[in-house]
């Protein structure tokens, strides 16, 4: 029972602090899931992200379901998912209820501009950490750069990148293992 409560609380925190959606949750995930509770390694998080990229639904929800299932089975998956969506449900309902023109208030806009900069800084630190632990060999660097170029500059869907990696692993997998 305590594990379920911890799961809900951890994902509630993550949901409440993820500004910008999707991968912006990485710094929170690392802190709550990898460092604090040790429910998953940072490698496993990347595996979940890869799968989340090709399965339907929101990445944050997919990752919550994965981690929850790993910790406490089906019920864990459900509790973690509810945890990650509850803060947004509450916050958005309040915004819709109280302030029709919430985003027109000048100091709210200023605060969000500042928050976006902070989110950039948090993501930068997480990405550097991620590269240090997962991008070690020359072909790793090549894959990371190609993935970045395909999505950031050519604006193609990340789905292609993940599927292409799966195909590459079947073709070159043995060679790489020997090397």
């Amino acid at each position: 029972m305590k594990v379920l409560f911890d799961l809900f609380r951890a994902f509630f925190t993550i949901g409440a602090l993820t500004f910008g959606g999707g991968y912006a949750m990485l710094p929170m995930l690392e802190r709550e899931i990898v460092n604090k509770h040790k429910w998953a390694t940072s490698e496993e998080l990347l595996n979940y992200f890869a799968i989340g990229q090709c399965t339907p639904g929101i990445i944050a929800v997919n990752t919550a379901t994965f981690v929850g299932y790993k910790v406490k089975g089906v019920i864990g998956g459900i509790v973690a998912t509810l945890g990650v969506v509850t803060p947004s449900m509450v916050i958005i309902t309040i915004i819709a209820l109280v302030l029709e023109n919430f985003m027109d208030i000048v100091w709210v806009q200023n605060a969000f501009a500042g928050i976006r900069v902070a989110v950039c800084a948090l993501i930068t630190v997480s990405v550097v950490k991620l590269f240090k632990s997962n991008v070690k060999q020359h072909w790793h660097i090549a894959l990371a750069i190609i993935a970045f170029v395909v999505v950031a500059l050519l604006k193609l869907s990340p789905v292609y990148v993940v599927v292409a990696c799966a195909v590459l692993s079947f073709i070159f997998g043995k060679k790489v293992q020997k090397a």
Partner: protein
Amino acid sequence: MSELLTMCIEFFKTGLFAVGGGLATLPFLTQMQEKYNWFTAEELGNMIAVGESTPGPIGVNMATYVGFSSFGILGGVLATLSLVLPSLIIILFVAKAMNAYQNNPLVQNMFSFMRPAVAGLIAAAGFSVMKIALLHQADTFLASINWIALILYAILVALMYWKPMKKLHPIVFIAMGAVAGILLKM
């Protein structure tokens, strides 16, 4: 009542077919707006602005907002649950399969190829957030740099690597950003 059910089915479909997360839900919402009169195109624009700046996954924020503004609190809760239900079911099956096959060399190989690429994908996502936060509209690159934002960014990154602050919760830095944004009128 039957309209509430229709809305749940629409959000279930969105959750089932929007692959890749985040703004992947947008085309479905545009379609919904054209087909039903639950919200106007202008409201959809406001929703995107609110959804992008408030915490939480954008798709969830949109579902709550649409459900609430058309059908009240119950509508908000049901729309959100309908949106996440398909991925919840699919991921539970995938997680089960992954547990069974995680020691299979083919699967391990596949993930060893995917991980560096996903690191690149996350860097790309960070890059697109940076473009919004650190640049503004201008003709030349140099003129488009938002210097106040850039300096704040540099200070925050430096603080995150500074030993006494390294272990602080991300909320501390988010709060610093909010305060700096208000004080500097960003």
